[in-house]
């Protein structure tokens, strides 16, 4: 294949990239395409599109997503930071624009229609936000006189304000959770953890009291009463599937399960392909997150550590919320399953996000420099 001695960027990329990550992401994207054949024709039929409307679009988005992911993975950490900064500024601007010019869908303004393509700026905001926060934490740690943490908090406040204004409470929770996890990893004192935990609980309570639909969903989840239709259908789909599934195309709950191609693709996969496949999907997500954190733990560069852990935690939280809702462990909340659910913005943004992870986890020869640097001292010590 590519020679070890080849020094071209591609060869360099090939020998330094984390192939386990790459494999996992490509596997998930492939599963996304396969599962869209199961999940989306039913939805397309229901809303009167041609059966394979969403399948085609999923594939059409998947190709640029792969290209984007691999393209981004070529970037150096510095370029990652810059790209993230550009994305963050762009996404923030678009989100402000969304509040005024966005399409209103089901009471929320989350989508922007530009040049015939509808995009969801908040999807692009998330990875950029994580990377920039990682950078801010890193700067603060490196030079405590720089108020990195404060900036990070201000940025969080801004992002959350924009998300709540849409309103998109799912993304808000996701961003909050990810930011909190990053801050935690970045060495937040336990006192702060307590304070922020209290604030988070207060915020959750506030959301419960202010937004009736949030209260409604929580109540339904806790009491099991009221309209738990979607989740009931989802559970039924999974239990009908059993260990080995009903077989491709044999699913029936998908016909009546709303959002079966986005939020409930996991349940559709369960009905047709079985719980074993679900466990495999779950394991892939867990593998990505744990491997990412494990790499972050061994990582010496703070920025990379925070950024990688933040990105994989974002990825992990999103998958956890989606799967948790599907198996009725969490209150109903619309959240896409990374790489698998249908959704152009989500897919491309996730590709960028995981491209960042790939870029940041490439083996960096310069990291051994301290070791090399210490070598003479060591040898002398032994010799001496």
């Amino acid at each position, binding site marked *: 294949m590519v020679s070890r001695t080849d020094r071209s960027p591609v060869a360099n990329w090939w020998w330094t990239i984390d192939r386990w990550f790459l494999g996992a992401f490509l596997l998930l994207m492939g599963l996304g395409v396969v599962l869209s054949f199961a999940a989306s024709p039913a939805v397309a039929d229901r809303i009167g599109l041609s059966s394979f409307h969403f399948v085609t679009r999923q594939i059409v988005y998947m190709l640029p997503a792969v290209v984007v992911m691999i393209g981004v993975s070529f970037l150096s950490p510095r370029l990652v930071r810059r790209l993230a900064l550009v994305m963050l500024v762009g996404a923030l601007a678009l989100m402000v624009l969304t509040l005024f010019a966005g399409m209103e869908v089901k009471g929320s303004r989350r989508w922007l229609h530009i040049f015939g393509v509808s995009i969801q700026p908040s999807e692009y905001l998330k990875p950029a936000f994580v990377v920039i926060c990682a950078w801010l934490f890193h700067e603060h*740690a490196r030079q405590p006189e720089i108020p990195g943490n404060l900036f990070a908090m201000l940025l969080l406040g801004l992002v959350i304000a924009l998300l709540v204004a849409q309103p998109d409470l799912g993304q808000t929770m996701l961003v909050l959770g990810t930011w909190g*996890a990053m801050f*935690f*990893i*970045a*060495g937040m004192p336990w006192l702060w953890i307590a304070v922020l935990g209290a604030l988070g609980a207060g915020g959750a309570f506030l959301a419960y009291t202010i937004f009736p639909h949030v209260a409604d969903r929580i109540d339904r989840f806790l009491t099991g009463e009221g309209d738990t239709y979607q989740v009931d259908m989802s*559970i*039924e789909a*999974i*239990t*009908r599937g*059993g*260990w080995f599934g009903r077989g491709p195309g044999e699913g*029936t*709950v998908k*016909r*009546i399960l709303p959002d079966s191609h986005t939020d409930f693709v996991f349940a559709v996969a*369960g009905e047709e392909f079985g*719980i074993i496949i*679900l*466990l495999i999907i*779950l*394991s892939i*997500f*867990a593998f990505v*997150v*744990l491997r990412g*954190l*494990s790499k*972050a*733990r061994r990582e*010496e560069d*703070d920025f990379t*550590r925070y950024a990688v*852990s933040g990105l994989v*935690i974002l990825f*992990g939280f999103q998958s*956890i919320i989606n*799967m*948790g809702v599907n*198996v009725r*462990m969490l209150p109903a909340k619309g959240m896409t399953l990374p790489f698998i659910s249908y959704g152009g913005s989500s897919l491309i943004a996730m590709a960028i996000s995981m491209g960042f992870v790939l870029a940041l986890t490439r083996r960096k020869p310069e990291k051994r420099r*301290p*070791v090399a*640097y*210490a*070598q003479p*001292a*060591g*040898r002398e*010590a*032994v010799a001496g």
Partner: protein
Amino acid sequence: MTGASEYTHDTDTSAVRRGAATIVMDGAGKARGGRAQNRVVMAMAVIFGIYAALGGRLVHLAMQEEPEASLPAARVTASRPDLVDRNGEVLATDIKTASLFAEPRRIVDIDEAIEKLSTVLPDLNYQQTYRRLDSDAGFVWLRRQLSPRQQADILALGIPGLGFRTEKRRFYPGGPTASHIVGLVNIDNKGIAGIEKFVDDQGLADLQATGLAVEGHLEPVRLSLDLRVQHIIRDELVQALDRYKAIAAGAVVLNARTGEVVGMGSVPDYDPNNPVNALDKDRLNRMSAGVFEMGSTFKLFTTAMALDSGLVSINDSFDATRPIRIGGFTINDFHGKRRVLSVPEIFIYSSNIGTAKMADVVGIDGHRAFLQKIGLLGRLPTELPEVALPTEPKTWKKINSITISYGHGMATTPLQTAVAAAAMLNGGKLFPPTFLPRTEAEANEIAEQVISPKTSAEMRYLFRLNTEKGSGRRAEVEGYYVGGKTGTAEKVVNGRYSNNVRFNAYIAGFPADDPDYVVLVFVDEPKPERDGISATAGMNAAPMVRNIIRRSAPLLGVKPEFGQESNALLVSQQ
């Protein structure tokens, strides 16, 4: 140094080298880096825990049985025992049918599904079916109890989301022949009428509820009915309905020694296999669920009462010269002889005046007590659920006793009347009628002696006399010594007795010297068979009795006796 020791040395150095590197790094960012590493480990633990919980939940879901509860709740209909007649002929049996259900959420195209289904089930209601299929229900019945052909046709349509469930369906091979006795089941195979309901009430329903009524393990229930006699009865009734243009007719053949109902019919009836009209008011079982003023047939009870009281002897006579006037009513005779009549004459001429006078001898209280004793004032105890309560005056006055003595002013069911008449003829033993087999010994055990055997013997004599010389001549069947009493009751129309709307009845026993069977026939609102003859019981009910006896007596094993005439015949042939 040897090469080997150099190698060892190198290894040592590299180990130290790593140590040194660590030391350097720790020196560079010990506090921060170490803490971050711990924090990452904590985060990993938490996230691993969450994923493990999700995995556990999935395994838990996989362990669960498929939620059948939300899908077809198994409604396999209950098994029922066959009903057979006394000779083992099947009256009712279970057959398996397919019932069509749909799982609406699996129906791809509702319009297409209904359109295709309509080719097999043309009477499918589009609106209603659409509503059902459009719901999110997991299971809806579309059509119960289809024929095998329909099932095959629907399967051939290949509509997804439809399925069949095998259900039991009750089938009555005889159709309407014994409909009122056998009864009916509902769509869930539960008995709702007749003996079917009786069988359920005997504990079959409980058995089914506990799931013990296992298919194929139910002993057939044998009835006292004789399907052949039953058929004859219904055949004669249907003919009579047509011949006399009557609104209804009914008949019962009762075993006089055991109380077993050998056959009973009431037309118009219904086909239990397609009981669309079973609930029509007109189609009730008039024999047990209808009450009628029986008219002159009631005189047999008055006569028996008078004779049994000891106050009247069969050789006594009563003056029937003049009508009785009481309370503004005039009691007159239909076939008035205008002379003093002996008791047998009163009976065979069916004299209202004479009968009223006989009742007067017994008195009001005695009259009522007698009717009470022979079961004409209470609900008839039997297996059939459809039993009407007889009516009687709230307070018995003299006028009531007088009218009741000849069958007006109180109403009883025909079956009840036949049962009481059997007691008058069989030696005085009253037992409730039964639709299940009963031996004579069993009957004697429960029998209640209501009149003396002597009175009963006198009643047989009167019965026979009436057929030989009185109004019942047209009931005679040669060799069977039919004895009987006619009754032509005027029906109440708009609160007044009308003299051309009638309820005719005939009660017979045969052979009259010691009756094996009692036959009661009634025909409601008969018209004259042809111009020039009247529509009295002797002209319609009596011939119906004759036909029934003539056709069924040989089947019932009653030996014809041709007496002196046959002896003479034998002698002459020698």
